[in-house]
């Protein structure tokens, strides 16, 4: 039981690392794109949120699985 809990905790942490890298890349590249073309800031922001939400989805699923294992 505790072994499973421990592994689940590692899984949740790893998911957070993955999502962090993913969202960081999205955010960083969006900032770069906005700096290059400030006139399309609105479009870039909307797309950035969509992509961040999609990346986050994977992390959230991992988190929920780790809850279920708990």
């Amino acid at each position: 039981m505790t072994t499973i809990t421990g592994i689940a905790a590692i899984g949740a942490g790893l998911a957070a690392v993955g999502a962090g890298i993913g969202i960081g890349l999205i955010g960083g590249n969006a900032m770069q794109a906005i700096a290059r073309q400030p006139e399309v800031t609105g479009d870039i922001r909307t797309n950035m949120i969509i992509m961040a939400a999609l990346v986050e989805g994977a992390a959230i699923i991992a988190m929920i699985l780790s809850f279920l294992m708990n």
Partner: protein
Amino acid sequence: MVKKSRIFIFLISLLIPIVLIANPEATAAEGKIEKSDISKEIVEHIMNHVADANEYHILTLGEKHVTLPLPCILFNKSTHQFSFMLSSAFHHNEKIEGYKLNEETGRVVDAQTGNRDSFIDFSITKNVFHMILGFLILALVFISIKKRYTTHKNKAPKGLQGFIEPIIVFLTDEIFQPILGKNYEKFMPYLLSVFFFILINNLLGLIPFFPGGANASGNIAFTFVLAFCSFILININGTKTYWRHIFAMPGVPWPVLLMITPIEILGIFLKPIVLMLRLFGNITGGHIAVLSIVSLIFIMGENGIKLGGAIAGGAMALPLLLFVSAIELLVAFLQAFVFTLLSSIFISMALEEHHQEEHH
């Protein structure tokens, strides 16, 4: 390439000590790290908060619990009978019609077995109460705004109207019009209702005391129903092109179709499922994070034994709590926005008409 492999090695090296620490046999043998009672109690408390309850616990004064009694509507599966009672009738471990209230979790359970398998719970629970409250607030706000629009036509918005109108204009300009195209007005009632309903429930959930504090929008049933509504709306608006792309992608040879079609069919269901899980996970995660940080005070003070630890814990918890609460406020808006945004994107994908000769 060198950079990437370095990051990989760094991540792996991070893993090694974690695996060692997480190995329970090793730590138990040394007897160094043992889960104390207080941290177990805290985990239980947090999990009870995140789950639903049949009574609304407001505060505890000494030994006395102040709760808001909520109506319980229970349907027994074996006798096929409904039982109606108030949750306050259960106090002092009383058993009514074979049910009792679990004092710790605040849930009605079978008096004999102690679990919830033998009946169906239709009660107005904490989350349902919370949801109805949110609904009433929304109704009040929007009816008063509507009145102002009819009595003060073509005047500058004022008060509450001045708060809501920019949000609706923003959503229309940023999401509905560019994504849904010319028929966007048809979907606005649903999408705006969903947006404001999620938003009000998220915000009410952030209030730490009585009229809020329930984890309504972080309940899987709540998000399931919203995602199910989106699922129906997406699929009843599906055009011929949409269905054709699912069952027989044009321009794809049939052996490949055998592989693609199951994935596409799975995709119909996967979209609302991810929609459901995203909202659930975000809000539940937020509630757990806030409560864990508050628990720092109790963990470091060892439940009131060490005053210095409690003060240190409080000093740590306060700025962290402020930070996490600010993030949660942002998340409350963002998740409502993301749910609406993704719903409208999925609807627009279903609406897509066949515009050119396909080249896939």
